[in-house]
């Protein structure tokens, strides 16, 4: 009985060191194409042509008589370490995003784009990400 206790009782202690970890990558929508964005010409490209180039927008906003479309693709990289009672998690989300603004005639007036979805990183909470 005593030898049984010697074997069984330390097992929960050993379990403390048997943690779990995970890496997860989530992508919402297709990445934006820099080549397609480069073809957008303010004052010339129409809303129809923008949709032909970039596809259906994620959001359409009415700005009185004008409008704006949002195109977005988000990448989220999650990393976690689980040590029985202690969980360590890091979540890093970055996006490719473009807003295209149209005048009242549906002609492209302004474009703003950020392509940074690929900058998302796997890390643990104490590790440096994006140089900070």
């Amino acid at each position, binding site marked *: 009985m005593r030898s049984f206790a010697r074997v069984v009782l330390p097992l929960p202690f050993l379990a403390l060191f048997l943690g779990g970890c995970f890496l997860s990558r989530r992508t919402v929508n297709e990445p934006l194409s820099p080549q397609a964005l480069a073809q957008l010409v303010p004052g010339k490209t129409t809303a129809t042509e923008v949709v032909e180039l970039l596809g259906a927008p994620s959001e359409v906003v*009415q700005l009185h008589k004008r409008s704006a479309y949002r195109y977005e693709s988000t990448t989220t990289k999650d990393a976690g370490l689980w040590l029985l009672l202690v*969980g360590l*998690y890091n979540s890093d989300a970055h996006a490719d995003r473009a*807003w295209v603004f149209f005048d009242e005639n549906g002609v492209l007036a302004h474009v703003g784009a950020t392509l940074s979805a690929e900058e998302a990183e796997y890390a643990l909470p104490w590790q440096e990400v994006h140089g900070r």
Partner: protein
Amino acid sequence: MRALPAALALAAFVSSGCLSATWRRDVRYGPPPPGALESLRPGESELDPCLALLGAPLDVWESAQGGIALAYGWERERNLGFTFSIPLDRGASASLNVVDERAKLRGVVLFFDERGKLVLLRTGLLGELREETRRPASADAEE
């Protein structure tokens, strides 16, 4: 006496589903380039150079004055916490509302007039700034 540590470990083992300590960091998007916001001048800066400098905003809406509001938001948060939970419900929702996610972020909103000239910068919670400054839908119906 020897049994005490084992009992504590066993208690920890069996309660691990509902008791936990977490250290969590969430990074959402990046802040504007250093010095970019400071370089903007209300009354002088225009929409196109602002878009070129700051990139695509997180959110866009029509301001109450009829101009355009561009919202830039980002987050870098560290949280330490202890959680004790008892599951009471069998159901769970994995849905994510993108608009709500944006509204919870802090950041800066740039307000442009109808000619595309920067008139104001405001910092704060993007959801609150949006509710406070957007043009009400009833204004369009009245026209």
